[in-house]
C-alpha cells in the first residue's frame, strides 16, 4: 500500500545532515512511501525561537501546517525536534490560539484548519515493520545496534503520544526488522546535549561521551538515532567530547534511515555514509 505524506525536512536535513535527507528519501522510495516536500516550509524554531518569541514561532509553524493542509496530506518529518515543535504548535492552536493565528495567516492567503496530523519517520517505519521486513535484502545479522531515542522523540508524552515514553519499543522494532540486534545502553532515553551545546558545553560533551562510551562497552557497532540533531551532537562533537572527557571518540552513529537503507539494499552511495565525522567503515564491513 502506498503511503503519501507532506514532507517537512527541517533545516538540518537541508544542511549538515543532508545524508539523512538522502537516506530518508531513498528508503521511502524503496518502501513505497511517497514524500512530497512542503513548498516554502520554514524553520520550526528548534525550541530556540520559541524561547524568545513564542508568537513568531507559533505563527511560522501554523503556516507550515497550513501549507501541508493545502496539499491534503499529513506531515512526516525525520527530525524529532521538528516533530515536537510542529505537534506543540498543533496543540496550542487546538487549545484556543487558532482564530488569532488565522488572522495573521489570512494576510498570506492561508488558513489553518487542524486537519493534518504530524508523524515521524520512526513511527511510520515501526508501525509498518511487518509490511517492509520481507523487503529486507541484506539482513544485518551480527550487527549490534544501540538505539538512542533522543528526548524529543518520546517526551513530553502529552505531545509525543505515539508510544510509551517510559518503555518505548519503536527503535528496537525497526532494528529487529533489519535483522540486526538491539543493544541496550543506560543513555537509551537520555539527552544528547545538543540544545545547550553552546551555553552548557561541558554538559553536552559529557552526555555525548557517555553515550558513545556505553555503546562501545556494550559491544555495539554503532549508535542509532531517529533525530538529526542527536546525530550532529553524537557524531560531529564526539571528537571534542573525547578531548574533554577522555571517553568515546570512535563510536559510529547512524541515522535511522541509513540502517534501514543498508538492510533493504539501497545503494550505499545514496546513504551518505561517507559524510560522518566518526567513520562507520568497521560497521559497514559487517553489512
Amino acid at each position, binding site marked *: 500500500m502506498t503511503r503519501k505524506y507532506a514532507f517537512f525536512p527541517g533545516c538540518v536535513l537541508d544542511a549538515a545532515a543532508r545524508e539523512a535527507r538522502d537516506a530518508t528519501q531513498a528508503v521511502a522510495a524503496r518502501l513505497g512511501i511517497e514524500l512530497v516536500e512542503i513548498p516554502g516550509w520554514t524553520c520550526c524554531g528548534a525550541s530556540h525561537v520559541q524561547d524568545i518569541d513564542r508568537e513568531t514561532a507559533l505563527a511560522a509553524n501554523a503556516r507550515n501546517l497550513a501549507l501541508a493542509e493545502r496539499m491534503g496530506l499529513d506531515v512526516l518529518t525525520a527530525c524529532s525536534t521538528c516533530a515536537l515543535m510542529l505537534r506543540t504548535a498543533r496543540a496550542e492552536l487546538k487549545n484556543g490560539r487558532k482564530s488569532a493565528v488565522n488572522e*495573521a495567516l489570512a494576510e498570506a492567503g492561508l488558513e489553518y484548519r487542524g486537519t493534518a496530523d504530524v508523524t515521524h519517520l520512526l513511527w511510520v517505519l515501526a508501525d509498518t515493520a511487518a509490511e517492509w521486513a520481507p523487503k529486507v535484502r541484506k539482513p544485518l545479522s551480527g550487527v549490534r545496534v544501540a538505539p538512542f531515542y533522543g528526548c524529543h522523540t518520546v517526551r513530553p508524552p502529552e505531545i509525543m503520544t505515539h508510544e510509551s515514553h517510559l518503555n518505548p519499543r519503536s527503535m528496537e522494532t525497526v532494528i529487529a526488522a533489519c535483522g540486526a540486534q538491539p543493544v541496550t545502553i543506560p543513555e537509551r532515553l537520555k539527552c544528547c546535549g545538543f540544545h545547550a551545546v553552546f551555553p552548557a558545553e561541558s554538559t553536552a560533551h559529557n552526555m555525548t561521551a557517555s553515550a558513545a562510551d556505553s555503546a562501545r562497552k556494550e559491544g555495539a557497532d554503532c549508535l542509532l538515532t531517529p533525530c538529526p540533531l542527536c546525530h550532529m551532537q553524537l557524531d560531529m562533537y564526539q571528537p571534542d567530547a573525547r578531548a574533554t572527557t577522555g571517553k568515546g571518540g570512535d563510536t559510529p552513529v547512524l541515522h535511522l534511515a541509513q540502517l534501514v537503507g543498508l538492510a533493504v539494499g539501497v545503494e550505499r552511495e545514496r546513504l551518505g555514509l561517507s559524510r560522518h565525522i566518526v567513520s562507520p567503515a568497521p560497521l559497514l564491513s559487517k553489512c
Partner: protein
Amino acid sequence: MRTITFAIDRFDGSRSWTQSFAFDHVPGMTVLACLIRIRETQDPSLNFTASCRSAICGACAVRVNGNAVLACDTMLDDLLEEWGQDTLRIAPLGNFTVISDLVVNWDEKIERLRLARPGLHARAEFSASGGCRQSPRDFQAIQKQWDCILCGACASECNKLADSRADFLEPFTFTHASRYARDSRSADSMLHVNGMLDNGLWKCVHCMECATKCPKHIQPVEDIASMRGMATAGGRTDGPGPRHAQAFRTDLENTGRLNEVKLVPRTEGLLSAATRRLPFTLRMFARGKLGVGEAIHLFFADNRPVEGIDGLRKIIRQRRRDH
C-alpha cells in the same frame, strides 16, 4: 496467587544495599499502599515519607524503575502493565542526597530555592490595608505554577542536573521564580529572573523530563522559556544562549531557514568561530559535511528566501502588531 516484588534501594547512613520484598498481588493498590504494607508486615525499619495520601503534600515521591512518581497517586497495576513485569525497582528520587532508604534531603534544595526570591514583592499601589487584588485573567496566567506541591519529581531525572548541580537549579525553582516574575502584582519581575539568569537559566538541555514527570502537569521547562523571553526582552541579551536563539529568529525572518554557517559566529563571536572552533570546521570540510564554496556563500550571502517569504513576513508582522 500472583507475587509482586519490590527491589528497594536501602541506605542506613553508611551502607547501601538492595533488598527485595515479595507480596501477594491485590488489585487497586497504590505504590504507597504497597510500601506501607511492606513496612507493616515485613520490615518496620523501611524508611520513606508520606503524609496526605492525596497528592497534595508532596512528601511521597520515589523512583520506580528509574522514573519519579508520586507513590500515593500511582497505581501498582498501571506500572505492572507499563513495564510488563512483576518486579519493580524502587529507589529514592534522583539528584537528591539520600538521608535514609527512600528519604531525601530537602534542606539543601530549599536553600537553593531562595535564589528565586520566592514571595510577592508587590507594586507600590498595593498596601496591607488596601489589599493586593488581581483579575481572574491575570491569576490564570500563573495558576498552574501555584499547583506545585514541591514533591521533587521534576528534579529527579533532570538531565542537566544529573550532569552538574553546581551551575543549574532544580526545575521547580525555575517554576517558583516564574510564578512571581509573571505575577501581575509583582513590582519587579527581574528580581526573580536575575537569580535564575546567574544560575543556569540558559543551560537547560531541553530534555523535557521535568514536564514529563510533574504529577501536577506543570512544565518547568516552559517556565524557563518564559523567563528567557523576559530576560531577552529586558535587554539581557548577552551570552551564547540568547545570541543563539536570536540567530535562529533572525534567519527565520530573513530567509525562513537556518544559516548554519553564521550560527557559530553569531552565537560565540567571530574570533571564537575562527580560532576555537577551527578544528571542528576543518573536520566538517574534510568529511564533506560542509562544502568550502557553500560555506563561503552562506557566510557572505545567505540562504535563498523560501517560496512565499513575503507571506511569512506579513504573518510575523501581524502577530507583532497584535501583541
